[in-house]
Structure formats: C-alpha cells, structure tokens
C-alpha cells in the first residue's frame, strides 16, 4: 500500500483515532470568487454544499434578453369575485409571463364532510342539537377551516369549544361509517380509530390550566411530595429485603446463602458479627439491580464488588487487586457466567478477610513489642499504641517509642528536659 509495505518495514504510525486531519487541510486554502473577509465569516471552513457557486457572485452582465417591467392587470384563481388587480410584471422580450397567479396555490382549505337532509334524518339527529345549529356549525367549520376557537366565538348560541368539537367529530364519524362500503374500509381512519372524548378533553384542559396557574409555592410543594414519595419507595424496597435477611442471619450463618440468591454456599466461616452487614449490603445491591429490569452480568459483579468493599479504603482495594494478580486471577473475569462471578466475589471477600487478619496480626505484634517497654503499672497504655493509619501525630509518637532503648517512662518531649534537670547539683544561687 505504501513504501513501508514494499520495503517490509514495520508500521510505526498506527491507529489514528479520527478522520479530523482531512478537513483541517482544506481550511488553509481560501477559495477564489469571494473575498477573504467574507470567507472568514463562514468560520474558515468551506460549506459542504456550496450554496452559491462562487463564479456566479461576481459576474451579472445582462444577457441577450430584453427585459422591461410593466404595470399589468392579473387574474387570481383563488378569488371568486373576479376582482381585477394590477401589479409589476417582468416582461421578457415583449412577452408577459403565463400561468396562474403564483400565490394561488397556497389557498388551501380543509375537506369538510357535507351531509344531505336525508342523511341527517337517518343518522345524525341528536336531542342536544337542532338541525339548524348543526348546519351553522358546519358552515362555520368550512369558513374557518376547523379553527374551533374562532368558530366558538362566532357561534350564535353559546356552546363550549369541546361541545362543538364533539358534535362535529361525532357527525363526521357517523357519516364516514355510514357511507363506507364495509366497516373494514374506514377502520384505519383516525376519526374512527380514536373518537373524540368530551369529558376527557374537558378534564385535561382543566388540569392543564390549573397546572399553568399554580403559584410558585404550589410548585415547590408538588416537587417535595414527589421526591418524598420516591425516597419512600426506594428505601422501602431494600430495607424490607435487608430486614428479612438480617433477621435470618441472627439465627445462623447459613442465612448468607439466602441473601446471595441461590449461589453455592461458601465454605468460609465468617465471624457472625460480620454477616448482617454484608448480607444487608448484598440485599441492597440486589434490590437496585432488580429495579433495572435488565442488566449485564459484569455490571452486576461490579456493583457487588463495590458493595463488599464499601468499608475498605482505597489502599486496601489496591492490595486486594494486587493479591488477585499474584494468584493469577483476572481482575475482571474473562468468562463472566453466574457461577464464575459468584466465585470471583467470594474470592475477593476472602482476600479482604485475609488482609484484615494480616493487619490484626501486625498490630498484635507491634503491641507485643511495646508491651515489653512499659512494665510499670499505671503507665497509660493508650498513648503508646496508636494505629499508624489514623493520624500523622500518632505515627511520630510510634516511631519515637521504637528508638528508645532503655526502659523508662514513655514521656513526651517537654518533660524530658525536666528529668535531666533533676540530677543537677545545687548551686549556690539556689539558696
């Protein structure tokens, strides 16, 4: 493909992420035909489809046609009254343009179904509506193109917009069905498929107007109620599951099986104090997964791992991952089936236990060492033993203890000069 290939050299320039380099080259060149400033207005990039051919912009010499403008009468097919109007017309070589008035095609109107008197008698009589009113309604509908707000305004007797709509749509629907050859023909017509529902419309509009006119306070109250309801449902679900599992865990350690839904029972005997917290965590995660309706196994594993290590610090998590690598286990399983994910999770938990035990052992050993320094009773032991992860000051004190070789009082810096002051012989000035 290129020289490198021919020579058999290894490819050095590898995956270029995007094709951005292409368009960037083009913007450097300025196209001819329009000035530099105008081109810069477009943002420095040529438009994909040149809207105007740049050659067109500069030249406009008159062609070989003779053009004059004349004040001429014209006919508008959209008008019914034959009114004769005049306007300027572009006449080319003495010939006026042909064709209808160019705006006549915009005179569109709605197709209103018209009924005959017979049809009215047969299908459309209604105790609430007289024939006269219905006729008036349809006339207005035609004149005003089904703009019901205007129609309602113009209607002689006072009827609401919903009533007018209802009458119009039900009449049209009945006519459609009556005139159709078979019911199947019109079944797909929107009027037949979804009839107008007056009460629903009234209710909807009322609700909308109320919503629109609610004060700021009402709006805030609504939001609070909704948020509260959401919180309650969310807390109710995992809390209920956690409750059930906690109650079971108190009785025996086998409850752990139930909480981790049907997974093979773990062989490790975790201390009973720990079981409720892990099962509660698991239960909450399971509940949130169930709310998702669909999820990937890897996502579920991530969530469970997070829940299990929620009380562990970042350093501990890193150490767990290190241990996994040392054991030759993938940090993310390559074949995440249900069984594999369960085993992976259990392994992680066991590693956490192991690390905690190691830490305990370390503290115990440190404790044991410090214990040999302070054999005199009454020496406060609390001060000597401060876990190094807790405070920086604690670390310093710990280090100082280790340096001290001779047995003696572990005391803080200010008091040691006082100690050394004691053996000083009495000076004459003291007397």
């Amino acid at each position: 493909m290129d020289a490198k290939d021919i020579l058999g050299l290894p490819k050095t320039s590898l995956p270029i992420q995007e094709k951005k380099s292409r368009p960037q080259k083009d913007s450097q060149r300025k196209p001819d035909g329009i000035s530099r400033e105008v081109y810069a207005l477009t943002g420095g990039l040529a438009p994909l489809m040149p809207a105007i051919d740049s050659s067109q912009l500069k030249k406009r010499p008159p062609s070989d046609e003779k053009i004059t403008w004349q004040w001429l009468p014209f006919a508008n097919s959209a008008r019914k009254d034959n009114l004769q109007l005049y306007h300027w017309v572009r006449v080319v070589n003495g010939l006026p343009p042909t064709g209808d008035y160019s705006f006549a095609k915009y005179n569109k109107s709605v197709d209103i179904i018209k009924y005959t008197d017979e049809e009215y008698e047969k299908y459309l009589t209604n105790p609430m509506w007289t024939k006269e009113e219905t006729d008036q309604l349809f006339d207005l509908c035609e004149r005003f193109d089904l703009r019901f707000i205007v129609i309602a305004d113009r209607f002689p007797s006072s009827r609401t917009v919903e009533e007018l709509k209802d009458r119009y749509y039900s009449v049209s629907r009945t006519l459609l069905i009556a005139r159709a050859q078979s019911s199947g023909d019109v079944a797909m017509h929107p009027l037949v498929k979804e009839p107008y529902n007056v009460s629903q419309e009234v209710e909807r509009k009322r609700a909308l107007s109320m919503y629109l006119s609610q004060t700021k306070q009402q709006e805030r109250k609504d939001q609070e109620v909704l948020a509260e309801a959401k919180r309650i449902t969310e807390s109710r679900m995992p809390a209920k599951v956690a409750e059930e599992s906690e109650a079971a865990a108190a009785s025996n350690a086998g409850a752990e099986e139930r909480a981790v839904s049907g997974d093979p029972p773990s062989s490790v005997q975790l201390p009973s104090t720990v079981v409720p917290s892990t099962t509660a965590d698991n239960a909450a995660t399971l509940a949130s997964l169930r709310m998702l309706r669909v999820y990937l196994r890897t996502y579920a594993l991530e969530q469970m791992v997070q829940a299990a290590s929620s009380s562990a610090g970042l350093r501990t998590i890193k150490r767990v991952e290190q241990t996994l690598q040392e054991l030759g286990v993938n940090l993310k399983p390559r074949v995440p089936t249900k069984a594999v994910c369960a085993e992976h999770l259990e392994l992680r938990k066991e590693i956490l236990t192991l690390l905690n035990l190691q830490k305990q052992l370390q503290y115990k050993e440190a404790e044991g060492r410090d214990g040999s320094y302070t054999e005199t009773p009454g020496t406060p032991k609390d001060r000597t033993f401060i876990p190094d992860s807790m405070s920086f000051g604690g670390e310093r004190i710990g280090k100082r203890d280790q340096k001290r070789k001779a047995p003696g009082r572990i005391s803080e810096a200010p008091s040691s000069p006082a100690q050394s002051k004691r053996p000083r012989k009495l000076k004459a000035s003291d007397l």
Partner: protein
Amino acid sequence: MSHSVALRKQGDHQPDDGSSATKLSRLKIGIPSEDADKKNANKRVKDVEICVPIVYGTIAFYLGRKASESQSHKWTVYVRGASNEDLGAVIKRVVFQLHPSFNNPRRAVDSPPFELSECGWGEFEIAITLFFHNDVCDKPLDLYHHLKLYPEDESGPQSTKKPVVVESYNEIVFPDPYEAFLARVRNHPAVIVPRLPASVNLPSPVPVESVNEKGRADTKDHHLSQWFMNFSEADELLKLAAARQEVQAHIVKLRRQLSLMEGSTPMSKPASGYDL
C-alpha cells in the same frame, strides 16, 4: 385533522373538587397508563432470573492489494449467542453507532444475525444498543466495543488471511421477568432459565413477530464462525477455586497464629472487631 386524545388516565377518575384530589390529578396527568386488557401480560415472575449469554465483538481483515488510503480493512461487528443460537427470540433490534465520519453512522439491524460489515481505516469505539421485544423489556441495553484493526505484533506486513478478532463474553440478565416472556423462552436454546418453583403458573406461549430476511438466524454456520473464540467457564472456575483454597489456607494459618498470640500475652487487648 382529528385531535386524538393522547393522554389516558389510570382507571376511572371522578372529577373531584377536593384539594387532595386535584393535587393527585395534577400529578397523574402526563403518565400514559397501560391498557386494562394487557394487565395479565405485565405480571412478573418473582425470584426467577432469565440469563442470555452473548458474545459481541469485531473481526477485521486487511485488504492487502485491494486496500486504499481510506479503506484499508474490511471489518464486521456483531452480537451473537454464546452458543451460536438464534438471539431473535429475545432481541428485536440492534443499533450500531459508528464513528461520525461514516455515512449514516447509526446503523440499525432488525433481524438476526445481528451484524454489520464496513470498510475503513481507523479504530474507534462502537456503541452497540440492544433493543428487546415488547414482552421482554422496554429498556434498551448498551454495550461498548473498541474496533481493533491492527494486530498486536507489528512484525512484518499484515496478512489478508488471518483477521484481527476481538470478542467479549457477557450475559444479559432479566430479573423477575414477565410471565409471557418466560413462557415463550423457557425451552429456547439461547436462553438459560433456572428450574421454576412448582407454584409458578405460566400462560401459554405466544410467539413473537420476527423478521427473518436473512435466512438463518443462528450463527452456527456463519461464514466467520471459524474465527469465533471459545469461552469456557471451566478454566476460570478451576483457577478461582484454586485461588480460594490458597487464600483459605492462609486465613486458617493466620487465625491459628492470632489465637496463639492471644494465649501468650496476658496484657492483650480484646480483639477489636474490624469490619470487612
């Protein structure tokens, strides 16, 4: 022309002037309700999870002599059943979102096998969205896969015969599935359904409408199937079991040490319960 009613209220609602009822109606509006007829199909089976194991990825061939600057590789991205069975029973449609420099970067595939082939020169992340049938789940699921064209070892010219294959195994889990869905797929080869408790009463299965334009829906005899990777959980399980044994042995050892220490030092503090 007809102003069809877009909002349906849940059940019968008597217009009420009480303030609490108005608040309720205010909150209810805007939520489309399910038709009462479909209520039975919306029942879910509790404590059962349906699992669909899938493999998704890309296979890319170098075009060799036929390659040009802008089209150096021909690649295919796909989602297949882990055992190469037909996924059409669960998945209705897959949408592959490609790099914006492609024409129509949003490509929808409406029938199995769910795959898409293209020619190009660059590597990028493909977003794969799975849409499920109506009785399965109305929420789509997103997957992401990085298209790899160039092989790991850069030694020598690329071969046109050996493609670059990257596949990932995963499982789609449907907790508490709909009864209709469960009834339909309980014996389907692409779907793992656990043993159902005796109390579960399922409706008779209703087959779902499927578009079968491409002949075979499964990928057992797919033209690329020779390159498909094998994902067996056995290896991983073995390794995990071995690791667990090792860790457990360590734990026992440490516990023994700790209890020994507790026995020897009289001034030992009570073991504080470090939470896991």
